[in-house]
């Protein structure tokens, strides 16, 4: 191990100064999710709003970051512009290794700069630069400029926000190294509220290798499992878009604002089609040999005299669902064109797509018109969605400013809450059934990755309330430990608890290796306590009627089962938090 405590850089943008804080807690809060919660409780203000200058934005890595493959993610935590409660968002790219090699377990940013600024950090430097000239600049252009302004090519991460983050949209993301994101729940807005356009972290520290044979042995074993077996094949072959066909086959893929869960047009927009028609190359997060990032290419003739430009857009299952099937788009290049605008404006593509799907159905129902939307929205019209994305990102009028805060906020003003596809936040692409709907609605991050509810649905056709709740609670605790390492959750099949224990032991964390289960449960509890202290109450979360009206492979949704699951899951969360 490098140290038995946490080394944290706290930067105050109001004063322009930083300081190193050393904190205990490696055997209890571990790192990543646990460390982020610990730091929010130390530096956060539970009762002040998300955009108060005192609120921290936290980036945290774990005890195995840098030592093992796929320990390649960073946890970003903040008080969310979406619900004004504590939350996390997870991202990869080079962020985790850059933080590790900057000799930090976490970076905490408090205060607010008077003018738009960029923060540059390394193991030996800290600088805050005025970048007022980047005001309103898109993610692509600002990334290029930050690259030009900063040292460390290849060994740095460049985080930045677009116009959506600057405008405080609750659906704005933080872009990580062009192709990855801290996507959900408004991290972009949290940085925008600090007048912080970008963060460059240059990893320039060097550490000694653990001086024991066990480290080399377990490293080789893990690396072999990841690269020489089929365990990770689904992620580097077609990638997550392989799920499109499978979920459509079992009536679990949301189409046209979840008006249906299956459509024969899937043949035009499945993972195979994306790979065949658009895949340009693969890319990877630093420290991950899997290379799950799929970069698609769109060629565009912008002048009749055969003048072309091209775009490289990274695609995954989720944006294909949110900007494809959910919007009735069945042409891969059209999906990439909308996604490209989402990327450049700094919107979360999942939330943005689902919000535009609601706006389209609201248009069909004549609750809103072109007067509000600025462009006529109809399912399948990709050009209109590209324009609407720009309007949503910049908050072009009252309607879009409200929609940018969440579909249910807009529905409260204009009507249409029954068909807003919101489960705590705009839904993820899994219409698998009652367990997932309850799980995302009340999940800590309102993410499909909080727990495996979508998987439980696909394996159980019977109704088992206590079995499902028990699964969700236990699964979340295990994932809380994984996101405290901080592992990519794609590697959860490799990093079982016994392997994790060996990995921890080999780098010197023997005490932690012996208490994985209890540490995971402790972090799960701490996160929920922190969320509850900032306003979470399960009874305030409703599941819109649309989710009760659909049919999956199991048949029609059973409203009694869904409501019972939601009630009991909420109670279970409160119980585990000690409420």
């Amino acid at each position, binding site marked *: 191990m490098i140290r038995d405590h946490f080394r944290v850089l706290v930067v105050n943008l109001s004063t322009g100064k930083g300081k190193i804080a050393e904190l205990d807690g490696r055997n209890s809060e571990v790192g990543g999710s646990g460390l982020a919660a610990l730091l929010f409780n130390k530096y956060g203000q539970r009762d002040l709003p998300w955009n108060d200058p005192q609120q921290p934005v936290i980036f945290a890595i774990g005890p195995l970051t840098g030592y093992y493959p796929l320990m390649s993610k960073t946890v970003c935590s903040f008080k969310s512009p979406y619900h004004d409660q504590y939350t996390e968002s997870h991202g990869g790219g080079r962020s985790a290794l850059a933080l590790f*090699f900057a000799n930090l377990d976490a970076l905490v940013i408090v205060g607010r700069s008077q003018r738009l600024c960029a923060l540059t950090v390394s193991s030996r430097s800290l600088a805050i630069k005025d970048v007022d000239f980047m005001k309103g600049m898109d993610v692509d252009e600002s990334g290029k400029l930050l690259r030009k302004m900063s040292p460390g*090519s*290849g060994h740095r991460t460049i985080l930045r926000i677009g116009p959506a983050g600057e405008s405080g949209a609750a659906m704005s993301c933080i872009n990580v190294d062009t192709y990855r994101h801290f996507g959900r729940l408004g991290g972009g807005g949290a940085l925008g509220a600090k007048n912080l356009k970008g963060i460059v972290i240059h990893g320039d520290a*060097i550490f000694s290798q653990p001086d024991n044979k066990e480290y*080399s042995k377990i490293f080789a074993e893990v*690396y072999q499992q990841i*690269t020489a077996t089929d365990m990770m094949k689904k992620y580097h072959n077609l990638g997550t878009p392989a799920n499109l066909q499978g979920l459509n086959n079992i009536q679990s893929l949301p189409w046209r604002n979840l008006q249906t869960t299956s459509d024969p047009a899937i043949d035009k927009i499945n993972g195979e089609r994306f790979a065949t028609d658009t895949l340009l190359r693969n890319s990877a997060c*630093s*420290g991950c040999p899997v290379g799950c*990032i799929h970069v698609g290419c769109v060629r565009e003739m912008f002048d009749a005299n055969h003048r072309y430009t091209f775009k490289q857009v990274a695609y995954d299952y989720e944006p294909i669902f949110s900007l494809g099937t959910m919007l009735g788009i069945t042409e891969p290049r059209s999906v990439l064109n909308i996604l490209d605008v989402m990327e450049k404006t700094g919107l979360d593509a999942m939330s943005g797509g689902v919000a535009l799907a609601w706006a389209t159905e609201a248009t069909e129902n004549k609750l809103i018109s072109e007067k509000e939307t600025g462009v006529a929205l109809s399912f399948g019209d990709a050009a209109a969605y590209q324009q609407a994305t720009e309007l949503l990102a910049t908050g072009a009028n009252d309607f879009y400013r409200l929609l940018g805060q969440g579909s249910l906020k807009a529905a409260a003003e204009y009507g249409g809450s029954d068909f807003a596809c919101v489960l705590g936040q705009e839904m993820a692409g899994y219409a698998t059934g009652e367990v997932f709907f309850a799980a995302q609605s009340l999940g800590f991050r309102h993410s499909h990755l909080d727990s495996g509810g979508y998987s439980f649905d696909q394996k159980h056709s019977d109704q088992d309330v206590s079995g499902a709740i028990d699964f969700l609670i236990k699964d979340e605790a295990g994932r809380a430990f994984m996101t405290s390492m901080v592992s990519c959750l794609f590697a959860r099949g490799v990093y079982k608890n016994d392997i994790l224990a060996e990995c921890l032991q080999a780098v010197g964390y023997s005490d932690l290796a012996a208490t994985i289960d209890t540490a995971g449960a402790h972090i799960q509890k701490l996160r929920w306590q922190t969320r509850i202290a900032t306003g979470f109450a399960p009874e305030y979360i409703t599941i819109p009627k649309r989710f009760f009206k659909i049919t999956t492979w199991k048949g029609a949704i059973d409203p009694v089962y869904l409501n019972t699951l939601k009630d009991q899951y909420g109670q279970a969360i409160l119980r585990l938090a000690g409420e």
Partner: protein
Amino acid sequence: MKKLTTPKIDRCIGCHSCSLACARLVHKQISWDTAGIRIKSSGGLTTGFTADHCLACDPAPCAAICPTGAFSQRKGGGVIVKKKLCINCGDCITACPIDAIFQDPAGAVFVCIHCGRCVDFCPHNCLQMEEIHGTTEEEASA
């Protein structure tokens, strides 16, 4: 005698597994700097990747300029490194025309010794050990 080459670097995904393996296995460090091969984008992440590594010059300007014999000419190209002789002057860094040598903050220098231990860690087979014409295995171990 062989040298490290990157004939399929266009397939690189930027995972840094080669750099990390070199630092770990050759230099006993956890680093993406103290490695004989270092990966960076060739001009932003949309442009693909390039590898900074020794191209096995013969004669090698870094060996020629080294004042203490820490770097000496390797037959067929590249250098033989004797760390104990190095005084951390950094002259080799300025002599290398392609920035293939890294100097850590304490002054120690790191260059590819063409051992090939990184090759197997590349998931896309971008790296390859290539025979240097006119050399033999005996010369390699001389």
